[in-house]
């Protein structure tokens, strides 16, 4: 059993390494990944009476939630179109391990792409943030949940758009009720209920605590717990849907 787990972890790491090299950490993807959040940040920041520090949770939340899943969601569909997914399926590794390995690559990318601009901005603006460690934890769990979401949606897709469309249908409305632009408490009550179910809401809230000290440590822990739960849930869904896709051929 123990040997089995380390064996699967080792295989997942191999897959993550391979995916990182092929899809994520190429020069154009990294440049694009860094460019987009900076652009988002500027749109968010310019014309508002915000300090860099106040805008930082928004920037970090959007990047953590958008960068990893944007590329991750294409990973399986793209391999299906290219015929490399069959090559992977022919190797002795479970579907859950494949999904997990691919999610790790997506997570590493999301985490890196978010952390670099955040650190640079904090440094340049000499901002004082409440807790750098909690900030990194918040970013990490957000990137993890987002990576899981990408896998869950990609699992049955034969073409990239089949996964990209539902991803955007989920992500974009989520942006508006996650407390990113308007506080959740100002939303109508039924939207508030939905908002608390959204992973992005917990990303925003946890980062607001880590950077600005809003809310409380208890809320932060709940946020991290919910994000972790989502990460696990999404991975399970991804593995189930991969299994399902073996029936269609």
């Amino acid at each position: 059993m123990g040997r089995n787990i380390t064996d699967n972890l080792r295989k997942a790491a191999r897959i993550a390494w391979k995916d990182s090299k092929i899809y994520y950490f190429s020069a154009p993807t990294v440049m694009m990944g860094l460019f987009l959040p900076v652009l988002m940040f500027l749109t968010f920041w310019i014309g508002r009476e915000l300090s860099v520090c106040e805008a930082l949770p928004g920037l970090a939340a959007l990047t953590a939630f958008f960068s990893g899943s944007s590329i991750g969601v294409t990973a399986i569909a793209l391999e299906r179109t290219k015929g490399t997914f069959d090559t992977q399926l022919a190797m002795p590794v479970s579907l859950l391990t494949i999904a997990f390995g691919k999610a790790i690559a997506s997570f590493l990318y999301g985490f890196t792409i978010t952390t670099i601009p955040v650190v640079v901005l904090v440094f340049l603006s000499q901002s004082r943030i409440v807790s750098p460690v909690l900030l990194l934890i918040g970013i990490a769990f957000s990137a993890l949940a987002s990576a899981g979401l990408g896998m869950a949606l990609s699992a049955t897709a034969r073409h990239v758009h089949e996964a990209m469309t539902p991803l955007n249908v989920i992500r974009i409305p989520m942006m508006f009720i996650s407390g990113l632009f308007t506080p959740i408490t100002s939303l109508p009550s039924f939207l508030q209920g939905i908002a608390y179910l959204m992973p992005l809401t917990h990303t925003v809230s946890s980062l607001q605590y880590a950077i600005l000290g809003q809310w409380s440590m208890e809320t932060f822990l709940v946020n991290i717990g919910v994000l972790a739960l989502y990460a696990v849930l999404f991975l399970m869904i991804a593995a189930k849907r991969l299994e399902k896709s073996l029936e269609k051929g």
Partner: protein
Amino acid sequence: MDAINIDKLTKYYGDLLAVDHISFEVRQGEFFGLLGPNGAGKTTTIRMLTGLLKPTSGTAHIMGIDVVKNPVDVKRQIGVISETANPYLEMSVWDNLMFAGSIHGMPKGRREEQAENLLKLLGIYERRDEKVENFSKGLRKRVTIAIALVHDPPLLFLDEPSAGLDVQSARMIREFLRKLNERGTTIFLTTHYIEEADVLCDRVGIIESGKLVALDSPENLKAANKQAKIVEVSFGSYMRKIEDELAQLPAVDMTKKRGDKIQLYTSDPSQIVQELSKFAEEKNLKIVSINTLTPTLEDAFVELTGFSSLDMERMEQIGRLKKWR
């Protein structure tokens, strides 16, 4: 223990019955071919056997292991070269093999040794550091073969290994497979090239519309077909009208044009010869030549499936244009 044991294996895609309760065994060390026209269910069968597709019902055991219950263990025992599978184009040949070897849990030293041997055998060792995207179709196929064999599996599956390759690449791959089989690897391949099945395989299963219609050695398949004899006749030049009229003769089951000759399929050659001379007399035709032929595997195939190899080539071209995905 059989290398492969299939029992009533069945696949429905929605309402479409693609593979219909097929059962057979493949012995260890055997070179087995599944032959059939386009859409017969070859790919569906091989995908079910290799754990890439879930059967609707029935079972398959690979080296004694149930492929539905234990797909990961089965994959340790087999190498798979599927019709559409590709190496990772963005990686080098070498990295492709190292990745596959590591997923198979091979230590670095063994991985490297095996990769070196295989790439040398396949003639691409010198190009191991190049990305696969630079490679032609034939060379990519060789990389795919190397990936499938990196863990030295006792059983190799190949779906249409020579489809779409030029004659030279196809011959090289056939030669390689023959040597591999001589060294003990069990081989299961699908093909719609009758020639290929005839020259390579110890036994051939013929599949048509999802059903296994025959299974035997190429020689026995040809012999079993001796019932259906062929009488080849020439009246000097071919005329469509004559072929149509010959097809109406009582003893003729089927006709086929062969250059200026017409082949008549029958179970009673002597009856045909009588009918032919009467026919020639009535129509005032002169029989230039008349021959009885021994059936080829192609004849057996035509007899069993109703497809000729010419039909198959035509369908192969159409098939390439309209892939259902």
